[in-house]
């Protein structure tokens, strides 16, 4: 059984007990424990079930590479699935539950799958759920969905907060082991701005666990000394619990800091996402031990040899009383020696190498541990827990030679450098035959904006598995990175590491090498996704020869651990099956993040009210307080209507239209874009921007203008006012202000840079309020001030003056067909002006109106709306706006495009009004049905509806639409689709439904 030893454990504080629960059971751990170490200390070996066969799963690793020990953590607003027990620090009150089992972890119905395993090989789902097709949606998908996924998605809102931080450093060092520490110290000494991040809660990495020597000191002492020096450097920032998640272009790195996962009662954000720009990034990310592929290597109690050592040294936990060590390299001997020195039994070290190991092997033998060279594990005995192993020859096919009783197996298939971050942004790998691993190829690094290498791999992550090489490499990397970032200050000398002489490892991809099918189908590669050696071989046999295809076919490496343990073993298996070398097979693509990061961290503060910006006019608060029903227009929120108590939105809109047509309405038009264009060449410039002639507009007058892009398509419209000899004010659509401002600047800066024109966006300087309706003048005049009579300020003119005590610029323009004044006052006075108008208008029946009323009134007048009548393929000529296209101008943006044959085609659909025969409203976007069918057998069309409303003024449905030869077909009745096999008849009419003579707006 696994248990806590009476003493030991460098990371735990035995004076501080913590209580936690696992599947409702109460357990005790110590401060400093991970959830995994605390569970093992309580003999909770089994922690979950595998994805496909629901096989019992125990802890296999001690770090970020753990594939099995995934748990649900927390509840309600802090619930989170798929959390790794090996990287979760325990705290008092932690509540974890295991995943992927029903009804319980110990007894699971889905485990039947394991007996069906021979019917569930790789690609099973692809093959099984193909025929018959009608079954896809209603039978197969629900079935697959039922059994898919590990943890459950949270149901409650996330109760925590998150944030981002933008950091800029010369040298970012990822990994706080000895290589990373040496690198950071050297770069810091050189004077560089350094950030050193470590994903776990403590520094020093494996060197401290293994007790190696550095410069004559114990690694622990060296780490402490180095940290002390780093802490005194003001140019170095040290961050624990911070993982380098991804490396991106131009030195951009995302790091994920877990601020209070281990102290949930603390205030502040839970996670911080670091958005780092580093001139150089050093990846000192260490290495991960590989499992060995033998039958039953997934039985709980089979762990990585390094993990067994970690639990022992770091947490004082023995995974078993009797541990068989099985290895192909020297490193695992450390585990045997550590166990032995703690008084635990190591019945045998099974070394696949015929010649055995080096100095460490000699030490093991000297300690009296049995070492069996050239041997292998034939099969592991036990179901929910290891009970023993059967040994065989590695060279053979697995004939049992001997059985050894044990409750733990410590396996080591060698080490793989963590090359993920090196590879994210294009760093290439080379295969190291001697150590049987991929390592960063320094000759093909990821390069940055300056074309130079931007990532430097260091230490074990760079393939230097031994202490001396690792620490020296880290030191050199720190120096090189600082220098490349422009810092060549005084530095120190390389620290010296000491190593025991090691024998070469032997690549072992299958144990024993000639294992039978029965054994291969029990030799796991991917513990979480249940991929076995036999599955990868099947994939190869069925033609999935590319590593990327084999991965997807078998799901190898596609689980939440992204194959940290399984990828190399898997592709070695594939290379054997294909009879090619491992580098020929290559790796799958390493993609960020290195380990999963929380959705909250990605969002940062952008949630709830801050999810996206909401733009508010100066009168927004009044709208909100008066029951406005808002609609988004770009990032603006505009009142759609102002429903009264007990009134529907539709009724409110009808009331607003009627009131504006008979009395007076008030519109908050502040969102309309306002661009000031000034300079000696402003007129010439605007003549190029607009289709009509703007330069000839007299001072004091307004003109409706159209803007096209170089493709000829209409992009914006609005009223232009001539302010003075050199200055115009251009109104744009609500959504268009920034876009059109950018458009103008583009042409001024990049094409006509010698033209003397300045543009400023003054949209938000003004509150602009439309006073609209037959009584508009009465309302304004009652406030006193400037002369607003028909004679003093006729239609399509503007004037500056005072209305009451307000500084106002009044435009006599109308988008409704009514007598209308658009009054601009400084935004700071906008709310006061709105209040004053409401008060003054009381006697005249004034009511505010929203955007829907605005749209109906403009449609009744036959005015177009950008985005309704236009969709990026419509030219002004389609909308009968030829009158707004100057014939006198040689050039304007879009003119050449409008001369193209397709644009001058007489059969382009053109704008008309539409009136249904039965008075109903045609659905928006409905198509007019034409004769016959097209090549696809679909009915031909001859037009479409662009705007459609119920007009309270006319008491019937009205619409505008683009119709083939429309203007030539006045009075003709055509049919529009209204649903399946239902059509509605409409008569083609003039698009102006209301006051065609314009008597009202001119009044």
């Amino acid at each position, binding site marked *: 059984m696994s248990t806590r030893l009476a003493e030991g454990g460098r990371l735990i504080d035995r004076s501080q007990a913590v209580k936690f629960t696992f599947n409702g059971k109460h357990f005790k751990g110590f401060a400093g424990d991970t959830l995994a170490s605390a569970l093992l200390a309580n003999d909770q070996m089994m922690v979950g079930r595998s994805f496909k066969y629901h096989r019992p799963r125990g802890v296999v690793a001690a770090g970020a590479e753990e594939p099995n020990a995934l748990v649900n953590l927390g509840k309600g607003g802090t619930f989170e699935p798929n959390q790794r027990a090996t990287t979760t620090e325990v705290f008092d009150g932690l509540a974890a539950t295991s995943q992927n089992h029903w009804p319980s972890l110990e007894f699971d119905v889905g485990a039947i799958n394991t007996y069906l395993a021979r019917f569930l090989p790789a690609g099973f789902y692809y093959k099984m759920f193909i025929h018959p097709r009608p079954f896809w949606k209603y039978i197969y998908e629900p079935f697959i969905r039922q059994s898919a996924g590990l943890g459950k998605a949270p149901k409650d809102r996330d109760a925590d907060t998150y944030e981002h931080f933008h950091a800029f450093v010369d040298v970012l060092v990822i990994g706080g082991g000895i290589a990373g520490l040496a690198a950071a110290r050297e770069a810091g000494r050189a004077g560089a701005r350094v950030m050193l991040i470590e994903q776990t809660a403590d520094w020093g990495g494996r060197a401290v666990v293994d007790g190696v020597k550095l410069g004559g000191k114990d690694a622990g002492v060296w780490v402490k000394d180095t940290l002390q020096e780093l802490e005194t450097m003001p140019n170095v920032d040290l961050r624990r619990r911070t993982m380098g998640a991804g490396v991106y272009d131009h030195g951009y790195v995302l790091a994920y800091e877990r601020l209070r996962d281990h102290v949930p009662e603390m205030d502040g954000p839970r996670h911080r996402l670091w958005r780092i720009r580093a001139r150089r990034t050093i990846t000192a990310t260490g290495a991960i031990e590989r499992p060995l592929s033998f039958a039953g290597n997934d039985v709980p109690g089979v762990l990585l040899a390094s993990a067994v050592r970690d639990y022992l040294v770091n947490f004082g936990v023995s995974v078993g009383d009797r541990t068989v060590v099985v290895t192909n390299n020297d490193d695992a001997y450390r585990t045997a020696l550590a166990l032995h020195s703690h008084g635990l039994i190591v019945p045998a070290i099974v070394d696949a190498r015929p010649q055995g190991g080096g100095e460490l092997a000699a030490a093991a033998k000297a300690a009296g541990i049995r070492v069996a060279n050239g041997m292998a594990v034939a099969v592991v005995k036990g179901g929910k827990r290891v009970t023993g192993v059967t040994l065989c020859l590695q060279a053979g096919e697995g004939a049992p030679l001997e059985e050894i009783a044990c409750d733990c197996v410590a396996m080591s298939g060698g080490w793989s450098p963590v090359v993920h971050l090196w590879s994210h942004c294009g760093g290439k790998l080379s295969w190291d035959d001697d150590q049987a691993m991929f390592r960063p190829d320094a000759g093909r690094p990821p390069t940055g904006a300056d074309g130079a290498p931007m990532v430097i791999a260091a230490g074990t992550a760079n393939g230097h598995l031994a202490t001396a090489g690792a620490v020296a490499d880290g030191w050199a990397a720190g120096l090189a990175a600082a220098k490349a970032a422009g810092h060549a200050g005084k530095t120190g000398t390389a620290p010296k590491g000491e190593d025991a002489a090691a024998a070469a490892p032997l690549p072992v991809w299958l144990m024993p090498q000639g294992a039978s099918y029965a054994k291969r189908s029990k030799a796991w590669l991917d513990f979480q996704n249940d991929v076995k050696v036999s599955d990868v071989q099947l994939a190869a046999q069925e033609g999935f020869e590319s590593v990327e295809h084999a991965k997807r076919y078998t799901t190898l490496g596609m689980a939440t651990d992204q194959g940290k343990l399984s990828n190399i073993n898997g592709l070695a298996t594939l290379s054997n099956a294909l009879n090619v070398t491992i580098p020929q097979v290559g790796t799958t693509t390493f993609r960020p993040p290195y380990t999963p990061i929380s959705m909250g961290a990605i969002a940062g503060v952008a949630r709830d009210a*801050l999810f996206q910006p909401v*733009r508010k006019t100066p009168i927004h608060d009044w709208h909100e307080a008066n029951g406005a029903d808002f609609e988004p227009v770009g990032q603006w929120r505009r009142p759609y209507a102002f429903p009264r108590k007990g009134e529907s939105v539709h009724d409110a809109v009808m009331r607003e239209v009627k009131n504006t047509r008979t009395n007076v309405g008030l519109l908050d038009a502040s969102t309309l874009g306002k661009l000031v264009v000034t300079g000696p060449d402003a007129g010439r410039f605007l003549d190029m921007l607009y289709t009509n002639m703007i330069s000839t507009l007299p001072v004091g007058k307004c003109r409706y203008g159209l803007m096209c892009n170089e493709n000829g398509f209409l992009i914006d419209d609005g009223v232009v006012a001539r302010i003075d000899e050199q200055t115009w004010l251009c109104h744009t659509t609500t959504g268009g202000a920034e876009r059109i401002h950018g458009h103008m600047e583009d042409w001024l800066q990049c094409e006509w840079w010698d033209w003397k024109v300045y543009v400023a966006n003054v949209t938000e*300087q003004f509150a602009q309020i439309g006073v609209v309706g037959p009584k508009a003048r009465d309302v304004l005049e009652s406030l006193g001030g400037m002369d607003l009579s028909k004679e003093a300020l006729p239609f399509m003119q503007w004037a500056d003056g005072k209305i009451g005590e307000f500084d106002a610029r009044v435009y006599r323009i109308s988008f409704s067909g009514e007598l209308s004044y658009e009054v601009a006052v400084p935004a700071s006075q906008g709310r006061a002006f709105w209040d004053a108008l409401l008060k003054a208008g009381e006697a005249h029946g004034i009511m505010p109106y929203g955007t829907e009323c605005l749209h109906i009134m403009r449609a009744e007048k036959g005015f177009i709306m950008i985005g309704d009548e236009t969709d990026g393929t419509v030219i002004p000529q389609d909308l009968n706006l030829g009158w707004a296209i100057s014939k006198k101008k040689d050039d304007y943006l879009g003119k050449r495009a409008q001369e193209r044959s397709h644009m001058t085609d007489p059969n382009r659909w053109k704008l008309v009004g539409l009136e249904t025969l039965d008075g109903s409203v045609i659905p928006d976007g409905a198509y007019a049905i034409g004769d016959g069918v097209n090549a696809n057998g679909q009915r031909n069309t001859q037009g479409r509806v662009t705007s459609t409303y119920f007009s309270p003024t006319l008491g019937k449905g009205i619409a505008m639409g683009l119709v083939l030869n429309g203007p030539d077909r006045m009075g003709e009745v055509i049919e529009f689709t209204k649903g399946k096999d239902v059509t509605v008849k409409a008569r083609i009419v003039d698009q102006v439904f209301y006051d065609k003579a314009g008597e009202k707006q001119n009044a």
Partner: protein
Amino acid sequence: MPEATSALNGREASAGAITLRDAGLVGMITLRGNLASAKLKAAVKKAVGQAVPEVRRMAGGLEGGAGWMSPDELLLVTAHDKAAETVAALSAALKAEHHMAVNVSDARAVITLRGGHAAEVLAKLAPADLDPDLFPVGELRRTRLGQVAAAFWKSDEDTFHVICFRSVADYVFDLLEASAKAGPVGVF
């Protein structure tokens, strides 16, 4: 005079060592022209008492300032009730030169951010290097805060003035408040 209100209407907040305050009504003028011209330099000096600033710098401050916005644009800061007459004076002084002077006082909001880790509050939101050694007092940066355009300048070691468009004043204030509440990061 009618009642004039700033977008944030005097809003204030504090979180730990950070205080956030609506700077209220501030006179702001966009001046575009040839920044090297003697006439323009003189007109700016007369208008706000400041020399034309160097690239990315703010000369002066809320009581009278000139900020570098682009190679042909300055932001002049003055009293809110002086903005209109200052625009008129600039236009008169620069009549003979191609230029533009417009009152943008009400198009924007100004927020004063003060406190020991004010730079960190901004660095949570802006992709800008705010290391005190590289972003000294008097530096002005146009960038984004969260998802909107903004500018800020550093008026003393602990104080920044943040300018954004009026319509998003609440959004920016909320952003700054949330970032301040999350506490210091310990970088600067």
